[in-house]
């Protein structure tokens, strides 16, 4: 066979085409951000699956995050009080300056005093009712202040008492008006309280009038449902719902709320319950130790 290529002239090399591994490397390099996203999402899915199967309570990252933010939450809470106090004083001062006559100034002062007294009275009343409640219930309890809400979709709050006050998980939390929820995570100086309207909350409860048992479950929108009450049980609007004590967390007989609507279901009635405690404006709460009266200190 004849070689058509002239002798002495180097044969031109064909352009080099990238091979399989190089192509793959180039492809991965070009789509690196997407692959990183996939890896990160997959890792977190595995982490979630692990948590769901293991049901861990307080994880290290939670402890770190809460400990890091705790001092700032407390400071901000305190700062808020100082600023609102200063703002109030400034308002009073500017209004006093506007008053020209002595009588009007006295009137403004008197109004300011009345306001302060009424605010102090409201706070005093709240604290007195808590103190009264603490003495009334046959369990040891510790008072706490709500310092922060939980971010995200869950209904929970942080209180300013934690391990150092002897708080553990699964302790009932209440106000004078009724139960609030239970502790679900405890840190050194703070604890997280799951509000009873949270979708994952459940409280062993019964109707105050006849002792019909059920479970109060959160609805996530400020209301709860009393589940597992059959259609033949007499339930009417306005009935009181109290804790049954069967869940081993909440002591028997604490007020949960009041029935606001009743509808028949397939087997169980659909009973909507409005919590007795003002859950959207929580300030001072009591953490109750144990569901057995033996826990009460002498």
């Amino acid at each position, binding site marked *: 066979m004849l070689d058509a290529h002239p002798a002495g002239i180097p044969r031109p090399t064909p352009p080099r085409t990238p091979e399989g591994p190089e192509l793959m490397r180039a492809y991965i390099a070009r789509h*690196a*951000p*997407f692959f*990183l*996203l996939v890896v*990160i*999402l997959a890792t*977190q*899915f595995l*982490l*979630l*699956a692990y*948590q*769901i199967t293991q049901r861990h309570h307080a*994880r290290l*990252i*939670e402890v*770190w*995050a*809460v400990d890091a*933010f705790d001092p*700032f*939450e407390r400071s*901000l*809470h305190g700062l*808020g009080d100082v600023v609102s106090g200063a703002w109030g004083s400034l308002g009073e001062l500017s209004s006093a300056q506007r008053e020209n006559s002595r009588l009007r100034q006295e009137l403004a002062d008197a109004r300011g005093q009345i306001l302060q007294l009424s605010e102090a009275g409201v706070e005093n009343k709240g604290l007195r009712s808590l103190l009264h409640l603490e003495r009334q219930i046959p369990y040891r309890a510790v008072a706490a202040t*709500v*310092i*922060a*809400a*939980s*971010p*995200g*979709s*869950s209904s*929970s*709050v*942080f209180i300013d008492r934690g391990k150092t006050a002897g708080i553990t998980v699964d302790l009932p939390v209440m106000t004078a008006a009724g139960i609030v929820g239970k502790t*679900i*995570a405890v840190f050194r100086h703070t604890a*997280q309280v*799951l509000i009873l309207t*949270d*979708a994952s909350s459940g409280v062993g409860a019964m109707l105050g009038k006849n002792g019909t048992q059920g479970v109060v479950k959160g609805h*996530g*929108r400020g209301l709860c449902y009393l589940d597992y009450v059959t259609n033949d049980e007499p339930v009417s609007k306005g009935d009181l719902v109290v804790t049954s004590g069967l869940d081993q967390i909440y002591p028997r007989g604490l007020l949960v709320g009041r029935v606001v609507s009743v509808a028949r279901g397939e087997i169980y009635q659909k009973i909507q319950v409005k919590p007795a405690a003002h859950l*959207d*404006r929580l300030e001072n709460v009591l953490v109750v130790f144990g569901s057995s009266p033996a826990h009460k200190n002498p």
Partner: protein
Amino acid sequence: MPKTADRIPASSRIHPAAFWISLFAGLLLQVTLPIEIPLARLFDFPLVLTLYYAMVRRDKIFGTLLGTGLGLAQDALARGLIGMFGIVDGLVGYLAAAASMKFELDQMGARYVVTGVLVSLHAPVLILVQHLLFESPPRFVLLDWVSGVIVNVALALICYPVLDRFRRAA
């Protein structure tokens, strides 16, 4: 508008102190504000910050890592499982950065449109992840979704101009 070959959107940098302070302040406000203002429960500061920084930096890896980091911090501060917000915020960060590379987002209006679209996507994706993982996931409530989108776009309207003050060309 879509980018052209001769016009690639330029990324910007934010002053490092402003960046870290804004992230910290966002997380802090997320946990403290709802105590004073019940409506603030609808705010999602970490989401708004993720969207802003991802769009400004125009870097998919940065957007993904920032969204994931803020989401994990949000998960750690909430009662929720670790990774729930991490997944959704990471995805949203990636998409915001991708949108900023594809479109010219220097105009405020375009930025708010992308913000609105991605904020609208956030809740359904979160619900989807919960459906994939839980036996009885929470229901999708349309009213909550709509109010969440409106409130967070309004939050972006306030936050973006403030954060823009600390922006400089890369």
